[in-house]
Each structure stands twice: as C-alpha cells, then as structure tokens.
C-alpha cells in the first residue's frame, strides 16, 4: 500500500506486551501461627539456601482462610522479605487480605481451583510446605480446562473472561467484552468485542450466529468493525488464524 511506504520510521515500536509463564515457588499457608511459620521457613531455607536466595515467592492463603485462621499478612510478608524472599503475589485471600496486599504493592490473584491441591492438606495440616513448581516435578498437576457457559446476554460494559472455552447462548451487546483463553462461541449476535486465545493459543476460534462485532481478535491478531466484510455479518461466521492472518468466513 502506498501509505505504508510513506509512514516514518517511528512506527517501529519500542516495546511489546507478551504473556508467558514462569515457575515460581508457591508458599501454602496452613497455620496462622507466625512464630511457627517463621521457624519452618528457616528450616526449609537451610535445606537449600542457594535455591531460596532472592527467590520470588507466591503466597497461597486459601487453605488457611478455609480453616478460618487469620494470618497476619503484612507480618508474614515482612518475615519473608527479611529472609531474602520476594513475595510477588497472593492468591486465595479474602477481600481484606487482597486490599492489604495491594497496599503493600503485591498483586492478588483469583484462585485457580486446582493449583493448590498438589499436596494432601489433611496430612500436613500443621506443617508448612514450599512447593517448587518444577516442570518435571511429579506433584504438579496441569490445570484442567475451565470452560464457561453463560445463558444470559452480555450487556454493554460487562466483561467476561474464561480460562478455557467460552460459550454464550445469548448475544454480546455493543460495548461488552468477552475474552477466552480457548474458543468463543456466541449463539446470538456478536456486537461487542471478542478476543479468543488471549494467552497465545493460535488454534482458538470465534464462532457466532451473526457478526456485528466491534472487534474480533485471536492471539492478538485483530480486526475492527470496518474491516469486517459486511456480507458475512448476517450469517453464522467463524474467525480463525491462518499463517498469522485473521480469516473471517461464513460457516
């Protein structure tokens, strides 16, 4: 295109946002007793001082909260920091704990149901365990796909995120946003934005009965309203990636 050659060099971007995954040790808290916690953390570190030195660490409060034990989060974080560990996030926290974590510049995450089940909690109720989520560690369970089904319309201003496939039996309004790590199926009209394969799954697809979307995207490759062929829109359509290109076709 002629416009392409005319564009100056600053179009080369200086940065890019990408998503990737790291192995980070998760610290699962079973007991709110801070002295006990500190003692056992020390013991663990003594076993492999090099491994834990300046290591990022993730705090899982789910079990502890399930047992109605109130752990002093700020004291725990301070304790970890003193031991040259860097807490980088918490999960399974209650509202109060999440708020506190944010105040301490530590992000809170929503629970992945099966991430904390790697150990039999009942057996080690009073111990503390530091899980090394090594790829070849046999205790690691890969998260199963968490599909989501929605029967109501997705209204303007609402956002939905599915860790697996997302199926919507009604429509997606203009101004709404639906995202999925897997495929997106919309059995009504798609008027809002739909982003499939948001964590890099290039094989994911979007299906809808009518395509009037503001934006469709798969793994970051997107098309906006004006770029979508008008003739496709009133019939069921699918959107997928082929050789890094977004293809929109009628079913």
């Amino acid at each position, binding site marked *: 295109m002629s416009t392409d050659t005319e564009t100056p060099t600053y179009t080369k971007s200086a940065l890019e946002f990408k998503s990737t995954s790291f192995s980070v040790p998760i610290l699962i808290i079973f007991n709110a007793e801070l002295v006990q916690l500190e003692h056992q953390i020390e013991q663990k570190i003594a076993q492999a001082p090099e491994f834990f030195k300046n290591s990022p660490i993730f705090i899982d409060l789910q079990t502890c909260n399930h047992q109605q034990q109130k752990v002093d989060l700020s004291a725990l974080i301070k304790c970890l920091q003193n031991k040259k560990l860097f807490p980088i996030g918490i999960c399974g926290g209650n509202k109060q704990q999440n708020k506190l974590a944010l105040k301490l510049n530590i992000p809170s995450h929503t629970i992945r149901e099966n991430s904390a089940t790697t150990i039999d909690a009942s057996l080690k109720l009073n111990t503390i365990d530091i899980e090394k989520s090594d790829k070849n560690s046999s205790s690691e369970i890969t998260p199963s796909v968490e599909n989501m089904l929605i029967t109501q*319309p997705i209204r*303007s*201003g*609402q956002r939905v995120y599915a860790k697996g496939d997302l199926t919507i039996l*009604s*429509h997606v*309004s*203009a101004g709404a946003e639906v995202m999925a790590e897997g495929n997106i199926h919309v059995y009504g009209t798609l008027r809002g934005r739909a982003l499939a394969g948001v964590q890099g799954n290039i094989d994911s697809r979007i299906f809808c009965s009518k395509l009037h979307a503001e934006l469709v995207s798969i793994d970051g490759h997107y098309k906006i309203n004006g770029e979508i062929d008008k003739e496709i829109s009133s019939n069921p359509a699918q959107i997928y990636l082929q050789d890094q290109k977004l293809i929109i076709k009628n079913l």
Partner: protein
Amino acid sequence: MARIIVVTSGKGGVGKTTTSAAIAMGLAKKGHKTAVIDFDVGLRNLDLIMGCERRVIYDLINVINGEASLRQALIKDKRCNQLFILPASQTRDKDALTKEGIGKILEELAKDFKYIVCDSPAGIERGANLAMYFADDAFVVTNPEIASVRDSDRMLGILASKSRRSENDEEAIKEYLLLTRYSPKRVKIGEMLSVEDVQDILSLHLLGVIPESKSVLNASNSGTPVILNEESNAGQAYADVVARYLGEDKPHRFIDEEKKGLFRKIFGSK
C-alpha cells in the same frame, strides 16, 4: 410480601418519572397499597408530576437522617387513598443517600405496602445504584433511539451484577422493557428504531409500548399522572402496562400506525 420495583434507564429524559408516577397510580387504583419514592436527590421532580409539590414538608433524606419519621414524610395522594409519595430532597446532593438508610426505609415500608416504586435518577451514580439495589423487579424505560438503548443495556448489566439479589446469590431481578415515546409513524420512515430492533438488541420481556403523546406533557404540567387520562393513548398504554405486570393478558397496542377511517379523517382525532 412487598414487591420493590425500580424504574430505571441510565439515560435521562426518557420518561422514568412519568412512568413511576403512572404505574404507582395504576397499581394503587387497582387497590394495592403503593408507595412511590423519588431517588433523584437534588433534582426533585416526582412531586411535581404527582401534583403534590406544595405538600412536601419532610423528604427522603430527613427520614434517613432521623429528622422525621417515615409517617411524617409520606404524602398521601388526594385522588387515591392507596397511594403515598416519598419525595426527594431538593437541597441536598446524592451523597446524603446511604445504603443502610434506604434499606431501613424500604424494610419499614415493606411491612405496610404491597408495592414500592423507586423512581431512579439518570446516570449510574449513587442515586441510581441505590434505587435499584434493593429491587425485586426492574422496569427499564427506553426510548427507541440508539443512545437510550445502549444506556439501558448498560443498566441491565449493572442490575445483574450490583444488586442485593446478585450479591446474596438470590434469584435475579425480574427485568421488563418499557418502550416510551414511541412513534409508529417515525419508525415507518426509518427515523426511529422499531420494537423489534430494540428487542433484538436488549432481548427483554416487553411490558408495554407507550406512544409519544401530547397528553404526557399536559399531564406533567398539571400534576396529574397520565394514567388518569383515560382518553389518551399514553394513559391507556400505561393502564395496559400495569395490568400486564399484575398478570393480565393484554395484547400490545400502539405499535402500528393507526389507520384513520373516513369518520376520523373528517372530524379529526383528539
């Protein structure tokens, strides 16, 4: 058990207060003890439409702050003894509303009243959020134009996520669509969205279509809820809405352009 109805829209000027006044009067006239509450603190209007502006002594905020009892603040309608109005404050702003205060008032009203109609202010700020928070039913008032439809859609999203029922994981608020200021003539020439268009976007149970009518403005000016004007299209349409809400089966009217017969052509229509 009292039913709490919120009349909401997101967008302003679509006919929330007119609707609140009309359906509250309609319910009361059917013999149900009804209270209608103005949540538009700072921009009080309901009292004007109900024709009781001179009788406002205490208001919603006074009751919340404990400066007056509910009984003192409620204004009994002069036309229908089953209808009571709780006006908003004109001198305060919306921050004076508190969730606890509103909850208490509604709880107290629920003991005595069959229906409680909450007239929501425009927007999605505090007043609007509190008006719909405790609701059992929502009347979403929409004009057949795209901005109003989009705002209603947004409001429906909020109704589904930020109400007491959603927070307590109870059965969701029942949502009804009320299409107001509808003009079949303008729909025909493509100046207005049709009922089908709006339904297609909102997918909501249609409770009624209120035609655009001069009688609405006249009713507001004279402080008489339009439902009391049995001659007018809008009044009849609101009566239908109330009947449908109470479970009667009424066919929709005023959706298609009225065909003028020879008689009407000669003598004109009202």
